């Protein structure tokens, strides 16, 4: 064991920080730091800047247009990005479908889709969940029937993030109902402009729009859009879900939120002094920070542990569970720090993804925007991507052997 950070990694970090500072557009950074949902245009502009630098896909191998940074360096880069308020990239494309395509896709698929992802020419959404297949994903029912060199897709997806903005969807569809559930699923790439495909917005409890229902009514998808082999989609999905588990703690995001919280607490007044100086509130911030420091080291452990090490399973199992809780706690504390104005609904005036576009803007300070929205929306962090209850089941079974 040796816990010193390599000087070369320190230098890398400084280089990244300087690059981001020099190149992240100021208006984009401002929206990011204020907690607004980034606009489509923000994401695109920044992705193209990164891609021009060769850093468009830090988790991809160099041969597909990525970089070959160590996991630690990818983590450090993410920390710097979030600290600067950079918009979250198109994760569906870069973290999910991209790796599936370059690992299991055909050469034609690679040529067609990867450059468009790297340059943010096309945005993606993930079509996995269905109304009766939440945590129990394998019970999905949307079916695709082969008809010549096309699949005909019927059914429904739900909780589809960014479907209202996406150009493409990667979906799990049932291509065989005769076998056990996991064995009859295929992985299809679907153009969102296909006839018969409709998107219905689902407003979430932050009064915002980010998830949708997607309905398929005899949607025809070219057979060449099948990734890998028919009926092997479950294994590609599992590959994708276990990918990048260190990132699931979302430490860089929470770290950034914590800094925003401290800035708020330094100016909001309670009992005549900044709430940062209120002993009970200061202790709550400190407890959160302490928990985050522990989680950050857990991430570093995962990043430095070889895949075949027996201890990896235990430490990585905690990341999503605790990470989701901390994301909730930091935004709840931000709401509390803001006092009653923390309870005021700010329409997302810059992102314009809010339900009620005419709602008046509260007369609260500028920095109050966004936190309530995050606090509400993040009730979902302990639900999506494997609810905490499922995470505990997994720990009990696979780590503890209960």
């Amino acid at each position, binding site marked *: 064991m040796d816990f010193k950070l390599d000087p070369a990694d320190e230098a890398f970090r400084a280089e990244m920080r300087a690059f981001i500072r020099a190149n992240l557009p100021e208006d984009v950074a401002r929206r990011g730091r204020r907690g607004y949902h980034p606009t489509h245009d923000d994401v695109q502009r920044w992705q193209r800047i990164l891609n021009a630098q060769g850093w468009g896909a830090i988790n991809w191998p160099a041969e597909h247009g990525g970089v070959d940074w160590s996991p630690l360096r990818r983590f450090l880069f993410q920390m710097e990005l979030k600290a600067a308020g950079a918009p979250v990239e198109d994760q569906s494309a870069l973290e999910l479908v991209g790796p599936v395509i370059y690992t299991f896709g055909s050469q034609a698929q690679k040529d067609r889709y990867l450059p468009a992802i790297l340059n943010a020419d096309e945005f993606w959404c993930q079509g996995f969940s269905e109304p009766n297949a939440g945590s129990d994903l394998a019970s999905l029912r949307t079916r695709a029937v082969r008809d010549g060199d096309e699949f005909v897709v019927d059914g429904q997806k739900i909780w589809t993030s960014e479907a209202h903005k996406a150009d493409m969807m990667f979906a799990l569809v049932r291509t065989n109902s005769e076998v056990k559930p996991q064995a009859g699923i295929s992985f299809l790439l679907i153009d969102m402009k296909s006839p018969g495909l409709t998107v219905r917005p689902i407003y*979430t*409890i932050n009064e915002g729009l980010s*998830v949708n229902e997607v309905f398929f009514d005899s949607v025809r998808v070219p057979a060449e859009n099948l990734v890998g082999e028919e009926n092997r989609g479950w294994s590609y999905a599992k590959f994708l879900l276990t990918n990048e588990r260190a990132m699931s703690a979302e430490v860089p995001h929470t770290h950034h939120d914590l800094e925003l919280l401290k800035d708020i607490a330094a100016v909001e007044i309670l009992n005549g002094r900044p709430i940062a100086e209120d002993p009970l509130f200061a202790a709550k911030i400190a407890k959160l920070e302490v928990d985050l420091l522990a989680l950050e080291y857990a991430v570093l452990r995962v990043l430095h542990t070889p895949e075949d090490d027996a201890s990896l399973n235990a430490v990585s199992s905690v990341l999503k569970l605790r990470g989701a809780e901390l994301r909730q706690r930091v935004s709840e504390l931000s709401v509390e720090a803001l006092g009653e104005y923390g*309870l005021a609904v700010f329409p997302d005036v810059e992102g314009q993804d809010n339900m009620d576009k005419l709602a008046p803007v509260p007369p609260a300070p500028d920095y109050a925007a966004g936190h309530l929205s995050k606090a509400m929306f993040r009730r979902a962090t302990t*639900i999506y991507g494997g609810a905490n209850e499922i995470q505990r089941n997994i720990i009990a079974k696979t780590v503890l052997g209960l």
Partner: protein
Amino acid sequence: MDFSLSPEQQALKDSAARFVEREYGFEARNALLRGDRFSAQHWATFAELGWLGAGLSEEEGGFGGGPIETAIVAEELGRALALEPFAPCAVMGVRALLAQASEAQREALIEPIISGESICVLAHGERAGRGEDAHVAVKAAKSNDGYKLSGRKCFVLGGPHADAFVVSARTSGQTTDRRGVSLFLVAADAQGVDIVPYHGVDGRMVCDLVLDQAALSADALIGEEGGALDAVELALDHGLASLCAEAVGAMDAALWMTRDYLQTRSQFGVTLNTFQALQHRMADMLVETELARSMLYRALAALETDDPLKRRMDVAAAKAQIGEAGHFVGAWAVQLHGAIGTTEEHPVGHLYKRLAFVRNFMGASDVHLARFAAWSAEAKAQDAHGQAARAGRKADDRRRTSPVSD
């Protein structure tokens, strides 16, 4: 002591429950949310059914009730997530007037409120006053024929629906002095009064009230000049208790809604209610709900004592306890519903939002906990002082040498 509803109380509860079941379903409420977030017709019904005066004794101009009756109505309105300004008007506005106004003013002002003609809400909170009820920076300067008010009241619940405000303003003293706080009746459409509306997380309308040399006649002063803070604190305590009652209603609704959901929703081939981990979580939710209800009753008892310290203590305790219990129950109700719980499309998310509102409105839980700690220490010191005075010096000396061997 009696914890069962009297026939009159049961009738009140039934009438409220019937109303919300018939008029305040999920879709009906959503329609209100898309419009004014308020129904004048509902408000008229509230008046008609006697709810706006249900919490007042006959001497106070009401129908023979008290805090318990207020809580019965508030609980049902909380269960239904009603949007109308019951607490800010029929509880806080009225209590402030009752405690401070002259008899003539009471006669003139109370009746129109309980009959639903006038919506008059308390406007007391200010931004820099967080945590201190005595903080009043809005200034009331004497003018030739009355007063001129300047300053800003923040996050006035129900303000956009009000035709008048009971505004606390300083007629003398420093910003946090107990003396020097006066109450004024301010019409919503008066000159120099600007209402800045917006909405809160639970869908209810709020506003900032911006006063810029708002000219009031001398008779806008309610009761005695400079001595209104006790009345304000009393009104706030009644408001807090009413808020707690709302929360208990919302918790109860969230609890049983979640129970029903677990009994019907399937996953992995069985209904969710068969999973022991979820059963235990629901048991914890029930525990919190029952203890919140118990605490609400304690707060209601406290509202009827004559000792303001004891009253403030128990109300602060209730706000601290119920604020956190409500968040616990609401957040877990959402979690156990899964993704649908995090949308606008299912009532459980709205229940959560009401509970999140209660948790931080009028002081977050820790603010009330810290107050309770301070007031509890004060009460203990008073008790000890009283006991020592009775027992004479000897006991007092013993206490000093060993804290537990008295």
